[in-house]
C-alpha cells in the first residue's frame, strides 16, 4: 500500500483554550479560501466510530477551497476535561467560542455550521443565536435525549450478545439507574445523571425541524439530511465493526457539497 497523500493540504492540529480545558482542533487550512465550515461531530462514543468519514469529509471540502475547522468536545477524544463533569451547556458554550474564533479569522468569508446528530443540535443552537451564514444538519434529533437513547440501545444490543442471559441488562435498567441518580458507563464513557436530566431539555430551536420553515424563520439557508444506513458509520447502524467503517462516501459528500456551494453563494469557478 502506498501512503502518498492524496493532496498537499495543510492540516494544523492545535489546542483551543476554553474555561478549564483545552479543545483539540484541526484546521484544514487552504490558500485563498472561498468559505469556511465548522464541523460539529457526534457525541462521545459515536465520535470514535465516525471519525474516519468525518475527517475525509473535512478533506473533501478543503480540497475544494473551503477552509474547515473540526474539533473534539471538551472531555472527549484529544480534548482535555473530565467527561463525567460535562453538560450540554458546556459543549454549547465551547462551540460558541470556537465559532467566534473562526469568524474572526476572516470575517468577510461566509461560514457554514455543520453538525452530526448531537453536533447538529449544538450547531443549530449557535446558529439560532446569529452565528453562521448557513446551517447543515445531518440526522439531528429533537432532543439530546433521543441521541443518548439511541446510543444506549445500540450499546445494550451489543452487550446482550456478549453476556449470559442472567447477566444481561436492558436499556430500561440503565435508564432507571440514571434516573435514580447513579452514573452509567456506556462504551467507556461515564454518563452522569445530570447529563441525562439535561438531555431532555436540550432541544432543537423552534422551527428547526423543518428546513423550509427554518430557512424562512432564520433568514439563512438551512438543510436537514436524515442519513440512511448507507451512510454508516456516520449514521448509526447496529453493531460497529461489520466492515462499514472504511468505505467510500463520496456520493454523500458530493450531494452536500453542491448544496453548500449554493447556500453560501460561492461564485462559479472559485472552487
Amino acid at each position, binding site marked *: *500500500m*502506498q*501512503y*502518498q*497523500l*492524496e493532496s498537499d493540504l495543510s*492540516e494544523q*492540529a*492545535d*489546542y483551543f483554550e476554553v474555561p478549564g480545558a*483545552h479543545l483539540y482542533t*484541526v484546521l484544514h487550512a487552504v490558500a485563498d479560501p472561498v468559505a469556511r465550515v465548522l464541523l460539529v461531530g457526534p457525541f462521545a*462514543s459515536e465520535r*470514535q466510530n465516525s*471519525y*474516519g468519514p468525518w*475527517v*475525509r469529509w473535512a*478533506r473533501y471540502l478543503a480540497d475544494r477551497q473551503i477552509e474547515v475547522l473540526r474539533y473534539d468536545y471538551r472531555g*472527549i*477524544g*484529544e480534548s*482535555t476535561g473530565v*467527561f463525567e463533569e460535562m453538560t450540554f451547556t458546556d459543549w454549547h458554550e465551547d462551540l460558541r467560542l470556537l465559532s467566534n474564533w473562526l469568524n474572526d479569522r476572516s470575517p468577510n468569508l461566509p461560514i457554514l455550521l455543520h453538525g452530526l446528530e448531537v453536533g447538529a443540535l449544538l450547531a443549530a443552537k449557535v446558529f439560532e443565536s446569529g452565528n453562521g451564514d448557513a446551517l447543515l444538519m445531518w440526522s439531528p434529533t429533537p432532543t439530546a435525549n433521543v441521541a443518548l437513547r439511541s446510543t444506549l440501545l445500540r450499546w445494550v444490543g451489543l*452487550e*446482550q*450478545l*456478549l*453476556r*449470559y*442471559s442472567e447477566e444481561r441488562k436492558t436499556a430500561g435498567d440503565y435508564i432507571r439507574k440514571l434516573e435514580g441518580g447513579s452514573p452509567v*458507563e456506556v*462504551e*467507556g*464513557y*461515564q454518563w452522569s445523571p445530570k447529563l441525562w436530566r439535561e438531555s431532555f431539555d436540550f432541544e432543537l430551536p423552534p422551527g428547526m425541524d423543518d428546513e423550509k420553515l427554518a430557512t424562512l424563520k432564520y433568514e439563512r439557508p438551512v438543510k436537514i439530511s436524515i442519513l440512511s444506513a448507507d451512510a454508516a458509520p456516520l449514521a448509526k447502524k447496529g453493531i460497529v*465493526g461489520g*466492515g462499514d*467503517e*472504511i*468505505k*467510500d462516501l463520496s456520493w454523500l459528500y458530493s450531494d452536500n457539497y453542491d448544496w453548500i456551494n449554493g447556500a453560501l453563494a460561492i461564485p462559479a469557478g472559485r472552487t
Partner: protein
Amino acid sequence: MPVAIGSRELFTLDGQGVLLEGTYHRPRNLMNCAPVRGKSGRVGVLFVNTLFLPRTGTGDAAVYWAESFADRGYHAFRMDLPGLGDSDAPLNTALLDFINAGGYGAIASAKVKELAARFDLDGVVIVGQCAGGITALHAAAASETCKGVVLLDPYFFLPQQLKKSKAWKRLVRWAASSAVGGALSKTYDRMKDIQLSLRGKRPPGNANFALLRRWSEVAAKGLPVILFKAPGRKSPGTKPRVGEFDYIQHLLNLSDRKNQVEIQLIESTDHSFANRAGRSAIRDHVQHWLEVHFPLPRSIESIAVTSEVVVTVNEMDYGNHAECL
C-alpha cells in the same frame, strides 16, 4: 515550535514522506520543564490504532493509559497509522484484510525507529489492542528499536469476510437470547469440538500463520511480551469457547522456556477493556510490567505517583495458577 499543553504535546512524524500524527504524553517529571533529552534508559510506550479507531481508542481508554504511564514517569505516545485518525492516506476499503496480513507492520516499524530518534529514546514498547495487536507483533518482529510488546485481546485467526445475511444475524441473536437456541448452540459447539480434537494440536486452516510466525520471532528474540485476554461469552478464563482452537496454549507452546511471555486474564471487562474495571486493571498490570522490565532511574521513580501494584503471573508460573487457565 511544538503544540503543547500541560503534559501533552502534538507531533508529526514525517520520515519517508509519510506524515503520521500523534500525541506525546510527557512523563510527570518533565511536565513543568523543557523535555530533557539526556539518555537515562529512556523507553517510550507507543499505542497503535485499534482497527479503524482513532488513536484515542475505545472510550478514550488509550488516552487514559498513556496519561497514567506518563504519570509513572514513562514517555507515552499515541500515533495514528496511515489512513486512520488524523493521518492521511488513500482510502483502503479492505482495511481488515490489510491489517490481518501485517500491512501496517513495515511502516509501524519504520515509524518506531523515527519516534525513538525524534524523542531520544533507547527503545519503544508497542501496545496494540485487537487488530492493533497484529500490527504490534509484525512491527516488533521487524524492529530493532522495539523492546517489548503489550497485546490486548489480539486474535490469531483470519476472520471470514463473508457478508452475513440478515437471517444469519437474527439466528445468532436468537441463539444468544433463547433457551432452545442456547441448547442448539451448545450442540453445535460440541460438534465443532469433536472435529477440532481430530486435528490434534495443529491450528485450524483459518489460523493467521504469518502472525503466529511473527509471534515465534518476537518470543525468540527474548522481548518481554504481555498478552491480556478479556473474558468472552462461553470462554471462561483464558480457555477458548468449546470447539474453538486454544491459541493461547499454542502460543505458549511456540515460546521456549527462556522467553519473557506473560498471559493475563482481566475479569469484569470486555474486548475493549474500556470500562472502569478494564482500564484500571490494564493500567496496573502494565505499569507493574514496565517497572519490572524497564525500570526507571530512581530519581524519576521517586517523583512518580504511587499506585497499588498488582502482581502479574509470568509464563513460568502459568501452570500453577489455575484461575488463569
